[in-house]
């Protein structure tokens, strides 16, 4: 049942917790809502910012996978120029 869409009319990733790799070097983890002309919309978002944390990407993601997403922002609109590859949290691997 992989790829099952729970919300007909939405994109496959709608409602799924994803990792968005930012052009800024940040990782954005949240529930994917949509991509529109303004960018990528996420809900309940945790942010890995290498400028303010010494924790590496991989251990940070592993912690989220084990303990869940600690929400820092309830809603984020990532501008198109920031939003890079989008991957399910369960599938993300370091590039």
């Amino acid at each position, binding site marked *: *049942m*992989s*790829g*099952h869409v*729970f*919300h007909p009319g939405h994109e*496959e*990733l709608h*409602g*799924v*917790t994803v990792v968005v790799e930012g052009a800024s070097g940040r990782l954005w983890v949240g529930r994917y809502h949509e991509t529109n002309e303004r960018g990528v919309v996420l809900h309940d978002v945790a942010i890995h910012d290498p400028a303010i944390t010494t924790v590496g990407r991989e251990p940070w993601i592993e912690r989220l*996978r*084990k*303990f*869940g*997403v*600690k*929400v820092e922002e309830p809603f984020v609109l990532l501008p198109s120029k920031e939003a890079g590859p989008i991957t*399910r*949290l*369960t599938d993300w691997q370091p590039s």
Partner: protein
Amino acid sequence: MTYNEMMVKPMREEVTRLGVQELRSVAEVDGALGPGEGTALVFVNSVCGCAAGAARPALSLALRHPVKPPQLFTVFAGQDLEATARARSYFAEYQPSSPSIALLRDGEVVHFVHRHMIEGRGPEAIAADLIAAFERHCSKETARRE
């Protein structure tokens, strides 16, 4: 904001008819989880699509397995707010998400299924993971066998 009880009732019953005890108050949660003895499963129910399409069917499949926790509980997120918050206090290290499933042994979390592990997966795959956890953590002495 809670949901219309008429809408939620069948979602509750989909779980309780599996033999899972619903906990609707803080006192009920403490009575069930407070002793912290043995192996207990806590299913955090939800109105969302991945509860209907994946989590509840997965629980149903997993509980058909001969080895399973002897104590089965559920709370309803977004509906029974205080009971859900209290239940989550027993696995406070884990961020709240719903639906989700906690497996506790002697008060310690030994397995946790977050919402992100449910989204977009089929009930069979989720049930297989749960069954593997049951077999790992529910000993012959404590498991409920049918």
